């Protein structure tokens, strides 16, 4: 009974648009069912690239961010001098919108940007290097991974810090009592107990990685199509909501698939999640 308002809320703002998107993706102009929009999507020049790029970004960004966030969380949690300061600095990107972050990194990587100015200033480069050229996919990809990691690692960090703070002090004291080194303590005590938080962080971060768009849009333009960006292009530039919806359905399927895999692989017992 008490759940009713939240169910109504979810239904109104999530379930209804989801069903609408599904319908849009399979309905022809006359209202009859069709797979034409999916055919159009899969035969589109950008589709296979977008699919590949989205997965490549996901595979590169998610593990990197989880590792980085874990190190950062341990630094903050270690209560070393100035740990609170670290937290504030790490959290800054959380306050910046995706596109603003993309434009910020564009100002760094573009040919007349800060990076080239600094490199030329210290004498590493004689003429400016074009980091964001369509001809050099690896550098372009690296620039996007750096920018995206900067932007979204803090999100994972916040979840992990919350998880760390839930671990009772007794465990650490016990580990100390048995003479465990800091590394052993991290591997044998912290990581296993952090698993529920890691799982949430992984799921949330993966979902967001599928939605990577604005940073890629700003840095790579048309060079690196991603699924989410193609949905946007089809809706706003090509004025075709049906194909855009087909992309949305693909993303939805991928997201649900990944979430199920995570839940199975990292299977966190009920006892752990409710601890």
């Amino acid at each position: 009974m008490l759940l009713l308002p939240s169910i109504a809320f979810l239904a109104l703002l999530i379930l209804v648009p989801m069903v609408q998107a599904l319908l849009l993706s399979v309905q022809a102009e006359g209202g009859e069912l069709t797979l034409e929009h999916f055919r159009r999507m899969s035969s589109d020049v950008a589709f296979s690239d977008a699919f590949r790029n989205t997965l490549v970004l996901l595979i590169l960004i998610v593990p990197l961010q989880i590792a980085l966030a874990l190190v950062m969380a341990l630094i903050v949690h270690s209560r070393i001098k100035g740990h609170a300061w670290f937290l504030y600095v790490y959290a800054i990107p959380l306050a910046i919108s995706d596109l603003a972050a993309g434009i910020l990194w564009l100002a760094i990587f573009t040919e007349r940007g800060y990076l080239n100015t600094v490199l030329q200033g210290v004498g590493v480069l004689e003429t400016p290097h074009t980091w964001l050229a369509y001809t050099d996919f690896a550098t372009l990809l690296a620039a996007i991974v750096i920018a995206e990691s900067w932007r979204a690692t803090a999100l994972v960090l916040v979840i992990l810090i919350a998880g760390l703070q839930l671990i009772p002090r007794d465990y650490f004291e016990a580990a100390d009592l048995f003479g465990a080194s800091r590394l052993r303590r991290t591997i044998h005590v912290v990581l296993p107990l952090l698993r529920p938080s890691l799982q949430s962080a992984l799921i949330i971060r993966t979902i967001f990685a599928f939605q990577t768009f604005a940073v890629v849009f700003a840095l790579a333009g048309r060079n690196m199509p991603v699924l989410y960006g193609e949905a946007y292009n089809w809706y706003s530039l090509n004025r075709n909501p049906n194909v855009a919806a087909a992309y949305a359905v693909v993303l939805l399927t991928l997201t649900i698939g990944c979430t199920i895999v995570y839940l199975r692989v990292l299977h966190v017992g009920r006892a752990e999640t409710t601890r």
Partner: protein
Amino acid sequence: MHDRVTRPILCALAVAALITGACSTTGTPTTGPSGSGAAAAGKPFVFASTQFTPVEEQERMRTKILAGFNAAQVDFITEAENDSISRITAEAKVGGQGQVGLLGYENGQFGTLATAGYLSDISSLLGKYTDRKIPQDMVTLGKLGTSTQLYIPWMQATYFLAINKKALPYKPDGVDENALTYDQLIAWGKNIKDKTGLARIGLPAGPNSLLHRLLQGFLYPSYTGGLVTTYKSADAVTMWGKVKELWAVSHPQSTTYAFMQEPLQSEEVWIGFDHVARLINVLKAKPNDFIAVPAPAGPKGRYYMSVVVGLAIPKTTPNRAGAEALIDYLLKPDTQVTTLRENSFFPVVDVKLPSDLDKGLQLEANAVAKQATAKDAKVVPLPVGLGAKGGDFNKALVDTFQRIVIKGENIQTVLNEQGVLLQKAVSDANAPCWGPDGTSSGPCQVK
């Protein structure tokens, strides 16, 4: 518990309020009287346009450009093309008088309303403007392929090249920058690249760029003399070969550029090809560092796309006399100059531009004039009659560019495959040929 129950309801209410708020602002006129005249004659009416979408431009339209119009009370509003067409269609279906008295659309946007017969015949007005010398091809465009005048040209825009003076020392010998050809532009870019090691020509090929217009209005007709009817011709294959050469000397970051004024301002690019409104900021900011020159010519001539914005009176106008008076006011030389000063759209009437014009605008005005009066100049309109299929049409062309130039696929294979999509867009819209493709009885055929 109280909180858990009320919060979602409050959220839902807030969302509902936002939605209704948004609807009500798009559906009704947003300003008070723009003409200061208290002695307004006739009914107040709405002047609806698809132009001046930025808020500052709308504000300048209401407070500066329309300031001297006193014949009736006018509410200027900007609407998206589809919304505006739906509104006029609805008003026409209801019959009688509607709210909208005058329309200001791009040439290609009038098609749907003209075909449906919702626009008034304003041929009788033309006689009044012979002394204002509106170019005849532009006046003819206003017939929209019929025998009656359905709109009168109001203002225009086009595309040209903005060139940083730093590029001039690298100009190949014997080249007149005011009469460039595409071959010379490529040679110029190659020269810069060979001597400085940097590609300094910039093409707007990023998302939200107007690359499709450069293909539709400049490259295709200049090389093939057409667009749809020559899409996969031998001339088109030659053209794409040239585009690849041009791309090879263009900045490799071009695929991220939407507005060329930005890379021109940072000097990442020295030679930029774009729409007047996407170059004006850099020319206003650094008028002494730049020159502005006409678009290059190809083997078939110096084709350039002219964005003509016209004024039409819907049959449901609540104040026909007021709408006619407003057309007259907007076509006055003084108003045309004010429109240029405030919102960077160029006059269609013969007018001497004042000497105190902003230097950047002066550069643009000179380039536009040189382009229009060049010996080999031929004007191309925006695509006509594509309506909602315009997106598919543009995408077919941009994807052609993507596959041939960026991915290096075989030119003829790509043209054959993309030609099918281009044909589908034209056939779905049932659009007859336009502009350089001539005329056709059924949908224009890709050849």
